[in-house]
């Protein structure tokens, strides 16, 4: 199964969620700056990465985890992804997770300053702070996604 976490830039919330899913971050405490900067793609993307589905790793159940930046296309993008999966006849092989709801103002302002304005020195501390604030909500989202993936897998095996 493929799991795609998506957010505006595919650089902060989706990448953090994917890292949590893959066990790259300790889910019992908020990550430090060093923890976050070790994650592939965290605050490192550029404009050409918008719309690219980037591979982050494979979890212990064999699910491939990806991240995606979709700009401001919102929930529609989830519909597009699942619609394509349905056209291909494999809707049970894909889970799309919209992380936008968990993006707080610190992440928005910090992310914009760091990635769009290229002022990493100013933006990065703000976006890291925002990520730390949203951390436990992201943990919750990832746990729900992992359960959903297991449930989908078991129901597919049963049928």
């Amino acid at each position, binding site marked *: 199964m*493929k799991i795609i976490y998506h957010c505006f830039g595919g650089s902060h919330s989706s990448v953090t969620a994917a890292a949590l899913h893959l066990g790259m971050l300790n889910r019992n405490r908020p990550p430090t700056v060093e923890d976050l900067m070790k994650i592939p793609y965290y605050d490192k993307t550029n404009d050409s990465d*918008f*719309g*690219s*589905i980037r591979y982050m790793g494979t979890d212990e159940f064999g699910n*491939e985890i*990806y991240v*995606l930046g*979709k*700009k*401001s*296309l919102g*929930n*529609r*993008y*989830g*519909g*597009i*992804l*699942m*619609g*394509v*999966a*349905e*056209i*291909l006849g*494999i809707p049970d*092989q*894909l889970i799309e997770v919209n992380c936008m709801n968990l993006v707080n103002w610190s992440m928005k302002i910090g992310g914009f300053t760091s990635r769009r304005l290229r002022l990493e020195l100013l933006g990065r501390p703000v976006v890291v702070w925002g990520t730390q604030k949203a951390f436990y909500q992201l943990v919750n989202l990832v746990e729900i996604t992992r359960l959903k993936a297991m449930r989908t897998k078991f129901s597919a095996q049963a049928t």
Partner: protein
Amino acid sequence: MNIIFLGTTGIHHTLIAAHLYLGKLEQEGYANLKFWDDRNKEVLGYPIFIDYDKKRNKIYSLGGGWEVLMTQKTIEQLVKIMDFSEQDLVVKPIFIKRERILLLLYKIGRFKIVNRLVLPVINYLIKKEFTAIKQQVEEFKGGVRFA
């Protein structure tokens, strides 16, 4: 094979492109097409199934909002990630000169009263672009390779 006609909205110019491709629309009587300006369909984001062509390919129409090329890139990558190829799904973007105005009008027209005013303008814009849409469909027909 599946073919998706992709544009800023999936219920206007791409809908016409899909019908032109299917040979179901020779003249400009598109306002009575099924799914024309169907906002309930558009808002879901799912590709809208139009019909089968003569070779049993499934034809869809899809709106990608402000980011048509980005959406095309994502869909093409997703197809590869899911272990399929362009023999299974092809995305054909349809561009018109006034596509941004069209999308803006679509967004403004979300309220029923406003929509009554906006819809004739959308119809007028599409009428102006009809030849360009037809040309892109003809080019695509000539170039697409079927499985």
